[in-house]
């Protein structure tokens, strides 16, 4: 009896153990796969920035070289494309954030007529497919006969779709903002402008900074809207697209890697900064 009973008793035990192990590690395995899925393409981009391709195409590993990094602007047109993109991203994100902050303040603070409508309109560019935005902007610009396509049309387009992101980001912060703080400042002798400078601005600064970074990130890699409205100007995404058709140079990977590293660094700085704030506050 007992000799039979033992293995049958052990069997479910064994199964249970296996199940327990799987259950214990399933999250780890899942996380590993998830990050692999997420990071593999980026890793490939990075690795291939050190490739030494023999032909036009940078698709198979040929050998290690620093040359792509050393001559990062060794491809005709890449340098001006990068600078144009940076220029547009900086100007567009600053203007969009400034305007977006003011719109957010107005939306949260003042009960004006048409506030609800404005709230919906702000969301419109976020939910409209980019291709529709790009195409309709093109139509608009074409109808304005005095407009020449180029830097200004790209800038206007970028500011337009960045504003919504800025408004949404800053608004989220302002909604939780204790209005009594501003009243307290005024109560203590600060006029409207001083109150804004000393209380409103410092307390919304993290959101404004976040909006700025977000706008910058969105602007610098925008392709669709830019493509419709760039005329003969070439931004970096447009350059990559053009280059990819005739064989992407490894320099594209270099720039891609550089942008990724800078973004990562900015994020880390932000995290560290927030931590320090929390510890101090």
């Amino acid at each position, binding site marked *: 009896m007992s000799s039979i009973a033992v293995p049958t008793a052990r069997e479910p035990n064994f199964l249970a153990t296996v199940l327990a192990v799987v259950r214990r590690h399933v999250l780890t395995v899942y996380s590993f796969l998830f990050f692999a899925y997420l990071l593999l393409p980026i890793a490939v981009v990075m690795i291939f920035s050190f490739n030494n391709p023999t032909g036009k195409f940078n698709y198979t590993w040929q050998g290690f070289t620093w040359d792509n990094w050393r001559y990062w602007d060794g491809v005709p047109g890449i340098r001006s494309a990068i600078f144009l993109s940076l220029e547009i991203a900086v100007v567009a994100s600053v203007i969009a954030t400034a305007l977006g902050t003011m719109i957010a303040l107005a939306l949260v603070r003042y009960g004006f007529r048409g506030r609800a409508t404005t709230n919906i309109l702000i969301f419109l560019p976020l939910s409209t497919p980019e291709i529709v935005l790009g195409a309709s902007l093109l139509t608009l610009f074409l109808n304005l006969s005095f407009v020449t396509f180029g830097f200004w049309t790209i800038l206007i387009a970028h500011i337009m779709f960045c504003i919504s992101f800025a408004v949404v980001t800053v608004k989220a912060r302002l909604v939780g903002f*204790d209005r*009594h*703080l501003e*009243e*307290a*400042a*005024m*109560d*203590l*002798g*600060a*006029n409207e402008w*001083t109150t804004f400078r*000393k*209380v409103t601005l*410092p*307390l919304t600064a993290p959101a404004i900074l976040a909006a700025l970074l977000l706008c910058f990130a969105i602007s610098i890699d925008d392709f669709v809207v830019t493509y419709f409205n760039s005329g003969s100007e070439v931004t970096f995404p447009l350059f990559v697209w053009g280059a990819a058709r005739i064989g992407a140079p490894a320099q594209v990977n270099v720039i891609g890697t550089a942008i990724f590293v800078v973004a990562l660094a900015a994020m880390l700085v932000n995290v560290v900064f927030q931590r320090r704030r929390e510890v*101090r*506050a």
Partner: protein
Amino acid sequence: MAVDERIQQSLERAAESSGTPDIRLDRITKSFGDIIAVDDLSLEIPRGSFFALLGPSGCGKTTTLRMIGGFEEPTAGLIYLGEREVSGTPPYKRDVNTVFQSYALFPHLSIFENVAFGLRRKGTRGGNLKGKVEEMLDLVQLSGYGKRKPRQLSGGQQQRVALARALVNSPRVLLLDEPLGALDLKLRKEMQLFIKRLQHDVGITFIHVTHDQEEAMTMADRIAVMNEGQIEQLGTPDELYERPQTAFVASFLGISNLLTGAVAGPDEVRLEDGTTVRVRNGSLNGRKGRVAVGIRPEKIRPDDHDPNRLPGKVKERAYIGVSTQYIVETPNGNITVVVLNDRPGTVPLGPGDRLTLSWDPEATFVVDSLEGSA
């Protein structure tokens, strides 16, 4: 030392313009759409007093205070700070400071900078600024906390920072909107005494908003009882308690036994069961017809030593320690009686016991009979 100086200053200030109240509200009304928050309210607050605005939730206390502070403009009426009419004057040009219920300390600034905020706006700098801020932190018993951020302080400490931040500007009037609402009971009691002492020391007029009658009675020299945007009665705590003029005031401040009846003669009211009671001389005040007589529970004796008498039967008894509270059934309804437990060995009355209640005519006030006043 510095406190003495300030007392001196405030005494001088009081002397130079005694007679002019610090604040005068002249028939102010404030409506938000259909809601009338403050309804044709007039009020004078004398210099140097500790004034309480007392009333139930939603009666317009905060709105009144915010109009004085300049955060709301009255729909009608005028507000005077001293001699000056201040309508249209923004908060930062009014010589009043506010302690907000939420404290509203600036979270991004240190305690020192919070307190220094008002002084900096006036251009105070350097050693002078440091001296004043530290003196004030000392006054609220927070010296040494200057470098911390508001979030690193307890509720009671934040409360004191809020006080210091307002008081350091030596305003004409300090406005306090339920400043103790967020504190627990024990701390609240402590802070009540602390704020009262502080007011006494600095000599600045305080207007304290609260819905807690005990708090108002403990702290204030004068109390305005508000109801539905209007002032029901204004007076010292004992006036309001001993001689309430309306059923609302009688029941809002402490417990009142209100017995309905009809005026039966000079200083006499006949209750519903036919008993005639004598009321305090002159308290009928020309009233005729139906009225209510009021007696405080502790003024009623469980014996027949006083002229006004009613028979009754004990319905409930609650031992409170210092006293025992009885609910007594009488022909005129239930009456609450509080008997002090000051003689050891007295056998208490129990439910079902019959007794006679009596009280002094002097302790009997009259209010308009108001159905539905609890």
